[in-house]
Structures are given as C-alpha cells and as structure tokens.
C-alpha cells in the first residue's frame, strides 16, 4: 500500500481517548501533589481535597448528591466484583440465592460462578431475542432465599438498554437487591441512580473519556459489600490501598465535562449511529441488526453479516483504517463465541459474523460515510470465498452442521 488510509475509531466500547482537560487536571498529581491523601502533613492536603472533589463530580454524573456513596476502584471489572461478591457475601446469613441475566459481562458472570463454588445458588435469567430482560422473567427466578440480582444497564455488545427502573421495582417487591453494570450506559445516556431504583451501580472513567485505572461503584445507603481488598481504611474500608489519585482526579474532571456535554454527545452519536443502522441493510444484503431496534444506546451499531466471519472482516476493515470489534469466536482469545449473541438465540455461524461499531463524540459523518462505502466490497469479496454463501446460493441450508473435524482441539 502506498499510503495508509486515515484511521476511523469505531471501538469506544474497548477504549476511549482521554479528554485533554482530564489529562491537564491529572498532571500535577504525578508531580507536585504526589502526596498520600491519608497523610496529615501538608503533602496530603491537596490530594485529599482533589479526591473528594472528584468524588462529588463522579457522583453528580449519575444523579447522586452525596459523596458518601461512591467507592473508587481501578476498573468496572473490580466494581462489578466488589458488588456481586461483596454484597452476596454480606447477605449470606439472609439467603444464598443470586440471579444474573444471561447477557452479563464476564466481570459479573465469573464472580457469580465463584459464589456458586462457595455454596451460593446461581440462576441465569434468559433474555428475549433483543437481549432484553423482562421483569416477569426476573421475578419468576426469585425465591425466598434470593438476596441479589445483577442486570446490566445496557449491553456493550448489542446496544440494548434494559428496562432497569422496572427491573429494580420488581426486585424491590421481593426484597432483592439489584446491582447494575453501567459500563456501556454512562457517557451515552443520562443516568440517575435514584430514579432507576438500583442498589449498586458500576462504571469506569473510560465510559466518558476519563483515564484507564479509575472506576466507581455507587452504593445505595445501607448497602455494605464485604471488602475484597483488605488493608487500610481507604474508601471507608471498602477498598483498601492508596488511592490512584491522578486517575481519580482525571475521572472527576471527565465526569464534570461529560455532565455538561452529554446531551450534545448523545444526539451526535445517535444521529451517526442511526445513519449506519438505516443504511447498512440497504448497502449489504443479509445483514441482521442485533439488539433492540429502539431501546438502544446512541452511537451503538451491532450486526451480523451473514456468511462472513467477523475476524476476516476486521482484518480487511483495518486495512482500510477502520477500528471495529466483533463477537466472533475467532477474535476472542478464548475462541468461544460471544455468550451474548448465543443468548439472543443466534446460531454459532451467525454469531461468528458479528460486527460491533461503537461511535464516539468525535466520530465524523465523513468517517461513517466512508465506512458505508468500504464495507460492501469487503463483504462481497469474503462472500465470494464463503462456502456458506455458496450453499445459500444453491438453495441449501447454510447452517446445517457438517461432520466435525477438530473436536480434539477444544
């Protein structure tokens, strides 16, 4: 290639660029204000002040006025671990049954499996074809021993936004606490934890252009998870260890900017995402849009391009400068198809053909249009070498499973 095509970043669910204002706010805490916020002497004063300022800003982004309910962690994964394991363990005397939706992230699923090994009973609640958890289904899974449910606010993979307020109301009726992973939602849609009625809520700074290494867990008053990291009294003993002050300060500044700009960012992402969702099925045949058609995140485009495997599309798209993701088994390090795509009822071969585009506040219309122009020839090229497409064209069932060849490989 003579000249590399310009890069277009459509993978904000994986990582987002840092706001320059956040970087500026962080800088002094690497140098002049390196002190420990727990210190009594003068070096501890500014870090301690900045930490609490960040806590107020982060709380405010999710509609919380009290700073007492925000626990800072290092990642949304850690926040989810603290919520699921910490809350369930704290309520073990009351009951040993927890419920998780079938579309939860691994940072909720794996802790649930750990609890199962510790003697908890775990129920997975199924979702409909859009990946929506129905309050009735959730309630059906409850029994007198149920203490905790976990349902994400929105799906990073298929963009579906859950009816979280209704789910929370259902939980409340049964005295079950509801934890929600807000990673995909915060920074894309307005969040008010009080109005939603959840009991805990996890989200990372990366969701709104803050730095990696900072995240939060919001806890309703009275919800006291058992600490996973024990030691000092940082975060009121709920998360020991010297605070990552620069990252938390960056998270606070990013939250402040996100709160001011969210409406504009959302509208921009919704417009460009809507353009893709409308145009893609017109430009390429046999596209299945995944997730809910209306209740979805702005700027989130998820689809399956039938008869074409995801990673092969990703590689050709990368050659054209596009950074996108796929739920294909081939792109995952574990070589397992996305559990979310299987949970919404897609066969393995279709799940293999998934693409996920997560646009950002800086995505341009020109980038979106260039994608619409570049994708069809890539799909056409890969379909011309796809045995599934050949079968489809011959009128055969492309998804009939042939004799297996490498059972031993798994």
């Amino acid at each position, binding site marked *: 290639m003579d000249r590399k095509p310009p890069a277009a970043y459509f993978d904000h669910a994986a990582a987002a660029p840092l706001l320059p204002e956040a970087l500026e706010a962080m800088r002094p805490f690497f140098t002049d204000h390196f002190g420990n916020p727990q210190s009594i002497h003068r070096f501890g004063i500014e870090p301690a002040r900045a930490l609490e300022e960040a806590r107020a800003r982060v709380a405010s982004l999710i509609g919380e006025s009290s700073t007492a309910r925000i626990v800072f962690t290092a990642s949304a994964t850690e926040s989810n671990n603290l919520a699921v394991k910490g809350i369930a363990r704290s309520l073990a005397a009351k009951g040993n049954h927890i419920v998780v939706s079938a579309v939860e992230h691994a940072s909720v699923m794996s802790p649930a499996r750990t609890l199962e090994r510790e003697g908890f009973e775990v129920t997975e609640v199924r979702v409909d074809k859009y990946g929506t958890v129905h309050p009735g289904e959730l309630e059906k899974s409850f029994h007198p021993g149920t203490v905790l449910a976990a349902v994400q606010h929105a799906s990073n993979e298929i963009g579906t936004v859950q009816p979280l307020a209704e789910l929370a109301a259902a939980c409340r009726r049964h005295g079950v606490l509801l934890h929600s992973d807000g990673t995909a939602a915060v920074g894309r849609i307005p969040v008010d934890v009080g109005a939603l009625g959840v009991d805990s809520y996890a989200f990372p700074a990366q969701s709104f252009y803050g730095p990696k290494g900072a995240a939060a867990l919001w806890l309703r008053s009275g919800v006291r998870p058992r600490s996973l990291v024990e030691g000092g009294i940082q975060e009121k003993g709920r998360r020991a260890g010297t605070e990552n002050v620069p990252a938390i300060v960056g998270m606070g500044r990013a939250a402040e900017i996100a709160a001011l700009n969210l409406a504009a960012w959302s509208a921009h992402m919704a417009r460009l995402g809507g353009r893709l969702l409308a145009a893609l099925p017109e430009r390429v045949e046999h596209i299945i849009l995944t997730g809910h058609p209306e209740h979805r995140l702005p700027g989130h485009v998820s689809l399956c391009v039938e008869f074409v495997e995801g990673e*092969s599309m990703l*590689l050709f798209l990368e050659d054209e400068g596009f950074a996108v993701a796929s739920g294909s088994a081939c792109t995952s390090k574990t070589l*397992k*198809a996305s559990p979310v795509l299987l949970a919404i009822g897609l066969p393995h071969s279709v799940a293999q053909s998934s693409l996920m585009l997560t646009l950002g506040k800086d995505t341009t219309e020109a980038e979106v249009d260039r994608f619409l122009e570049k994708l069809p020839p890539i799909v056409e090229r890969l379909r011309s*070498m796809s*045995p599934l*497409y050949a079968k489809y064209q011959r009128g055969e069932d492309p998804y009939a499973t*042939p004799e297996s060849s*490498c059972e031993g*490989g798994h």
Partner: protein
Amino acid sequence: MYSEKVMEHFRNPRNVGEIPDPDGIGEVGNPVCGDMMTFQVKVRDGRLADVKFKTFGCGAAIAVSSMVSEMALGKTIEEALRITNADVAKELGGLPPNKLHCSNLGADALHKAIEDYLARERQKRPAGECRCPYCAEPVHPAEKFCQPCGVTVDNCRKCGKPLPRDAFECPECGAARAEEEEKED
C-alpha cells in the same frame, strides 16, 4: 498478531473457488466456533491437477486454506495425503498458538476431498480389479509398487488387493493387515 506470510495469503488467497466438475469434494466444519472449509480436487494421472477451496473463517483459516491449496497443487495423491497441519503452519511462518486449531481444518478438508475421490474411483471400477489405493490407476497384483505414482503397494494377505499404507484393515475384504495379525500372535 499474524506473520507477514499469513497476511499475504489472507489478502491474496490462491485457488479460491469451485471446480465445475470436481473428482472429489471435502467439507469440514468446526461445530464449536462455526468455521467451515470446502476443498475440491481434480485428479489427472495420479496428481492433483486442480485444487480449489472456499472458507468461512478467520484470517488464519483463510491463509491456511490458501497455503494448503498451493502445497497440494501438482502433488501426487500420496504426497498430498502426507501434508500435515503442522507442515502448513510451518510454511506460513507460524500461527498464533490460539489459532493453530484453524490449521487443522485445512489439511483435513484436503484429505477428505482426496478420500472422496478415492471412494468414487473404487465405486467406478469393476469388482475384482486391482487399483492403487492412492492414484486409483490399475496395478498388477504381483507388483510391489504402483507404476504411475510410485507408491509402494502392500497387498492384503487374504484377497491380494493393494492396501493403503496406513490402513489397519483391507478396504476390499475387511481382513486385518498382516502386521496387525502378527502382533496379535
């Protein structure tokens, strides 16, 4: 992630497509990840005169198919059957460890296409006729190797028909291979 050679084959795959009237077809799929590969072969004088593939799979799967087709083209049936998954990965300058399973599909699909060809040939020939198990050309029962493809031909002790090298039993009469019988003794 991938070597330059893998990316080169992925971007410019050789021998993609279908043969209008193939002599053998092999299709393999991985039920776990959903990948699928089909190989078609045309055989002339005991050699693979044409090899075509279609693949639904990742970059590694496409590169592997392309490399297998390139390695197999022009080879004798016996040589082509000796191509292993490890050979393919090696020719490609290595594959990421978690992608090695993709290379398994490649040689398997090729071998299946050749086996399909051999099965068709066995059906075609009149009962009692002796043919090489690799190139399907006629072989005299007394001959120790096949003239057209050069493979050493072992004969079944019971019915006298030629045996494929790695067969444990005679494909014609079902008798166990000589060495196996000896081992049991």
